[in-house]
């Protein structure tokens, strides 16, 4: 069944996906809120940048990240001059890469959920003495709950499934940066189809279960009558 390195890859994958999703929710929520409320002329620019990972080949994204994170790149160089190490081929580098890669999958559902709420509930809350921060947490967040659920699952699942970016910036260090998708690739390359089956089947099941829960929960939480 699962070898020791496969198990390590599974744990790293789940850890990576969890941390990435959590950080993306933290950073993505205010960005999505701003995008849903802003009437700035430059909003389209930010929307295009956020959607970029959707269309860019992961290897292109991975390549630029590798350059940026490496010891001679701007981010890696900065890290080294601050006494740290360059981020290329580290778990932290993977998290950063995954965040960029999965960003649209978290921000876009949040943005459309916030937009769907409309201005009215926030105005009502304002006339009921709720400060802007108060109404964000007491009105916008609960009303956007289906959006948060979708964003979390899509962000998580998309990170689990990434390959190109990870390969470029994480390398393939077992126990450190080797994730499931790359472990599968390795097994296939040396014709260990049995192992590849186990891992692929597991991922297939996991992805399906996650999507199933999103659709089931969103149906339960759906707010049909907004008036």
């Amino acid at each position, binding site marked *: 069944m699962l070898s020791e390195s496969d198990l390590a890859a599974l744990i790293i994958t789940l850890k990576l996906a969890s941390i990435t999703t959590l950080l993306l929710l933290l950073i993505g929520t205010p960005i999505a809120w701003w995008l849903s409320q802003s009437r700035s002329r430059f909003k389209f620019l930010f929307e295009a940048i956020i959607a970029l990972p959707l269309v860019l080949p992961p290897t292109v994204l991975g390549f630029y990240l590798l350059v940026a994170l490496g010891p001679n790149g701007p981010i890696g160089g900065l890290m080294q001059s601050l006494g740290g190490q360059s981020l290329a081929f580290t778990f932290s580098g993977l998290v950063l890469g995954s965040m960029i890669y999965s960003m649209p999958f978290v921000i876009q559902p949040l943005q459309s959920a916030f937009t769907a709420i409309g201005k009215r509930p926030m105005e009502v*809350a304002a*006339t009921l003495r709720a400060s802007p921060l108060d109404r964000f947490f007491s009105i916008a967040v609960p009303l956007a709950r289906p959006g948060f659920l979708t964003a979390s699952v899509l962000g998580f699942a998309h990170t689990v499934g990434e390959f190109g970016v990870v390969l470029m910036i994480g390398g393939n260090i077992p126990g450190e940066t080797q994730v499931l998708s790359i472990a599968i690739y390795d097994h296939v390359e040396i014709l260990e189809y049995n192992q590849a089956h186990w891992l692929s089947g597991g991922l297939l099941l996991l992805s399906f279960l996650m999507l199933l829960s999103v659709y089931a929960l969103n149906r339960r939480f759906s707010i049909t009558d907004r008036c």
Partner: protein
Amino acid sequence: MTIEVRYTIKRQDFILDVDFKIPSQGITAIFGQSGCGKTTLLRIIAGLESCQTGFLKVGDMLWQDEQFLVPPHQRSIGYVFQEASLFAHLNVQKNLEYGLRRINKKDYKVSLQQAIDLLGIRPLLQRKIHQLSGGEQQRVAIARALATSPKLLLMDEPLSALDLKRKHEIMPYLESLHDELSIPIIYVSHAPGEIARLADHLILMDAGKIIDSGSVSELFTRLDLPLAHGDKASALIHAQVSGHDMEFNLTYLDFPGGRFTVSYKPIEINHPVRLRVIARDVSLTLEHQSQTSILNIFPAVIAEILPENDSQLMIRLSLNSVFLLCRLTKKSASLLDLSVGKAVYAQVKTVALLL
């Protein structure tokens, strides 16, 4: 205590230019056609519409001047929107408590229980929002606004999204707000019927400007204003119950111009009532008719005559300084030789009791 409002706003296709004071008691209605700026004005008073300059003072509370602006959540207002706009993720009880939990205990004037009883929503407290009818939702929304003990209640056509049956369902609750709470209310509407029933004071708006303001009964009968024209033109009369005739099941209502006789209404003696008399239900005679089925006949003097259309005239009658409107054909006016200052008898066919 008064409410002072001064704003001049220019937008691409819209100018709002208002400067008025209203008494901070009773219901002040803002009346005008759609797009005249009445909702924008209400939103400005609530602080929901941002405008850089202007002046707004409610009693001793300054909410905006040249240097100073109080954000909406720090204004002691209640706002009832056209649609109930209840929070879909909270049940009725939680909706009601939302504003209540956010005000200081020392500012409690209206208790939650009082608001619940006033709007008759006690049986609904544990319901989810989508289980309520449109009329019930609007009643919850009004109670939710009241529960914050506002110093000023703003209502933006609270009945316009409802059908006639729901309107009639809510109207008595709005009337009880007027009678039982001392909170001043600004009520935006384009329905003269609602204003006749509810309002004490009236502001008429057109194209972003205030064309006149005053007591409802005065403005309803001013022939230079749009309210005194058309099919629904009517006079509003304040009267009080002076007695009942149990033999014929009648109730007598006295007003400065005389006494109305109407079908029996179980109202206490001396209780104030509002009457609405529609202009087309009033006819004129030169002599007091005794051979007629009409009971309500009053001596009157013609105060003003204005042509209504090709064939009809609108006449303003003074009944001892109370005004009635009367719509006649030009032919009748010519036959009776009517002119301003002439003494006539006004026969009122039907009168609506508004309570």
